[in-house]
């Protein structure tokens, strides 16, 4: 049924669907999981790297998390090459805004710009959509710390906690249960590790499979930092110890 209506992005199917856009989202659901959590004093971006190898040069670039400007960063799920094009474009647009207004672009406007760009590929040009979803972490003077998510259709939403990529549905439902308003950054980091351990395919987590970054405000400046492997391993360890303790507690109660 879909065969006639899915090859060209710009055509609706008789049921009113845009198949190419849906197929793009399908591609993303095979990509490494990305997680975003809004805390009261920072935004966390966490991601599972798909490409891990001892031979990979670690310092040259990041696979999942990118800085867009002084106040906004994003994480990527999907086709990395497509993501690079979009990130390059959005970095240019945010500098253009700074040039025109001498002020950093408000987060939502930046997200809208990239979404408008993505939307164009679902309506004209005959080109396929971008196979990328983003999580954006940012700060602006109007609404403070914010978290947004966008997908290949060009839709976006503001979130307290969000997940994209592989197993995002199960991750999202765990977040729904566990997320509380007013989390501290440390609470958020623990929550991120917890969710990732439950949803990632690999049974044993380690820092070289993950990318973690935080966006915080300190003294009138926005700080965007990647967590180093030592810190990530420490978080994983704490989480594993917690789970061990909980397991033992359960066994104890079961015996009673």
């Amino acid at each position, binding site marked *: 049924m879909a065969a006639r209506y899915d090859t060209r992005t710009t055509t609706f199917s008789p049921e009113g669907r845009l198949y190419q856009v849906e197929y793009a989202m399908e591609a993303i659901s095979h990509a490494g999981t990305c997680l975003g959590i809004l805390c009261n004093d920072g935004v966390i971006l966490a991601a599972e790297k798909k490409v891990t190898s001892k031979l990979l040069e670690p310092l040259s670039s990041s696979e999942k998390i990118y800085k867009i400007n002084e106040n906004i960063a994003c994480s990527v799920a999907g086709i990395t090459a497509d993501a690079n094009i979009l990130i390059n474009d959005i970095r240019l647009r945010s500098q253009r805004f700074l040039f*025109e*207004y001498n*002020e950093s672009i*408000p987060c*939502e406007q930046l997200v809208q710009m990239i979404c408008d760009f993505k939307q164009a590929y679902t309506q004209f040009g005959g080109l396929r959509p971008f196979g990328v979803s983003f999580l954006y972490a940012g700060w602006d003077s109007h609404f403070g710390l914010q978290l947004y998510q966008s997908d290949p259709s060009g839709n976006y939403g503001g979130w307290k906690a969000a997940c994209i990529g592989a197993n995002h549905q199960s991750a999202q439902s765990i977040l729904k249960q566990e997320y509380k308003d007013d989390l501290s950054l440390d609470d958020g980091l623990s929550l991120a590790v917890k969710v990732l351990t439950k949803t990632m395919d690999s049974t044993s987590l380690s820092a070289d499979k993950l990318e973690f970054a935080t966006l915080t405000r300190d003294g009138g400046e926005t700080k965007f930092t990647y967590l180093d492997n030592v810190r990530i391993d420490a978080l994983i360890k704490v989480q594993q110890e917690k789970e061990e303790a909980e397991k033992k507690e359960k066994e104890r109660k079961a015996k009673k």
Partner: protein
Amino acid sequence: DLPLRSTAKMDFTWGVKGKDFVLLASDKQATHSIIVVKSDQDKMYQLNDHQVLAVTGEAGDTVQFAEYIHKNVQLYQIRNGIPLSPNAAANFIRGELARYLRSRTPYSVNCLLGGVDPQDGSAGAHLYYLDYLASLNEVPFAAHGYGAHFNLSILDRYYKPDLSVDDAKELLRKCLAELRKRFIIHLPTFSVRLVTKDGVQTIDWNAEMAA
């Protein structure tokens, strides 16, 4: 192509920044050579709730440019749900002047932008001086036109940061008195506006002078 010289200087605009307000004044005469066409022209444009743009320069260019800026500032606010800050608006205006400067049709317009950023509290009052060559400077006080030559030294002498509104009005009184005495062009009436964190207020200067 237009000559790059500010052709009109008979208009007068004036601005002073106080602690948390900006006081702007401009004359109300529209003249063409020796004829006064209109004596109640408002040369100030309220860009949004907290900003006023006063323009002088080539007849026609002034209105075209000011209305263009006004509509773009409004559009930004409608599109994005938040107003442009005074700093952002000033840079936007300068950018447009700069863009048109190196075209065949530059705008021969001088501006004073007075605005208050409601987010910034008492640090939020800003006065910007822009001229037809697309310069931009944030200043504590400023004036455009021939009248500026008569007023800047008075402002240098009597201006203090953290002025109160009454102090600023007194300063305006002194400046306009000097124009009345020494400037050959008679300027009978003035638009005066006060911009604070609560918005833009039109001050009836005739009433003020009579008081």
